């Protein structure tokens, strides 16, 4: 009987410990990037014009409208020239110089242009908020991204 009880008790303990570790790890702060205070000027600011990025031998054009982007105003973001076999095309938008959470939006493809409608909603106090639009396939980053600045 002793040979039976001891392993079961140990297993219960291990199961409980694993559960607590799992819960703790799943409630840790989740963030895409760390703060980046030293903001170097952007080569191309999406706030002012269309910007392109080389990705997997393709030239992807990012655009947004209307300009200038206003906080909480619905803004259409588009990506043209992207040929990617998505399972679940999404973008994530997050701050680089200030972590105020991540906006997740699904991309819709029509005529080889991916678009989505977003509302930039973080309440900010920095003079300039640098955002990154990162393209994801489900929860996996594709490596394609574009940065832009929004003045307060």
């Amino acid at each position, binding site marked *: 009987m002793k*040979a*039976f009880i001891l*392993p*079961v008790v*140990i*297993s*219960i303990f*291990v*199961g*409980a410990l*694993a*559960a*607590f570790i*799992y*819960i703790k790890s799943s*409630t840790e*702060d*989740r963030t895409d990037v760390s703060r980046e205070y030293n903001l170097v000027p952007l080569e191309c600011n999406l706030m002012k014009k269309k910007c392109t990025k080389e990705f997997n031998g393709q030239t992807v054009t990012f655009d947004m409208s209307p300009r200038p982007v206003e*906080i*909480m105003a*619905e803004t259409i973001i588009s990506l043209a020239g992207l040929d990617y076999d998505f399972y679940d095309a999404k973008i994530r938008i997050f701050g680089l110089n*200030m*972590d*105020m*959470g*991540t*906006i*997740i*939006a699904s991309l819709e493809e029509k005529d080889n242009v991916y678009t989505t*409608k*977003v*509302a930039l*909603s*973080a*309440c*900010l*106090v*920095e003079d300039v908020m640098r955002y990154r639009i990162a393209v994801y396939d489900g929860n996996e980053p594709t490596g394609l991204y574009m940065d832009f600045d929004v003045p307060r």
Partner: protein
Amino acid sequence: MEKQKKIKTAVVTVISLLAACIVFGAIVYYNEQNKYNFTGQSSQGKISLSDLKGQNVVIYFGYTYCPDVCPITLETLSKAVESLKDYNITAKDLLLLYVTLDPARDTPEALDEYAVWFYPNGMGIRFEEADLQKITKIYNIKYEIFPMEGSAVDYSVAHSSALFFFNKEGKLVDRITNLTVDNMAASIKKVMGIK
């Protein structure tokens, strides 16, 4: 004899593994069911999220000195509800809990007033700072106080914006960070089981 020992070892191993899995699953399930629950201060006294079972609830974290994002978000929520009038949905069907990220300045009464100004069925919730830190961690809400020298408001609270939708059973049905009218309307339909 040797065979009997092997069988015994196999049985003990299976039961032990099963016990570990059951304990793991039970604790994780219990946590998932209850982790979003909280007890905060409302203008009517202490209230828990679990007390509101039977109502669809949406939670937003903001503060009453919030100049732009919070009012616009609440107005957008009102617009989203209005957009669903063909489904006979009104604000009465969705209770807004407006949780303050600025407990030093906000009272539950002031939060009520602020929330109702922008959304007809709103209620303010206030936590003490220590509890607020725990709750925001669970909800993955970022906030930070920034001094504003020379300003009448002394400081501002930068924060992330997200809406959390709970159904009548108190289950988190949706969490959205892209706060457009369409997305909010889709979440409201989801929380009410409308396809």
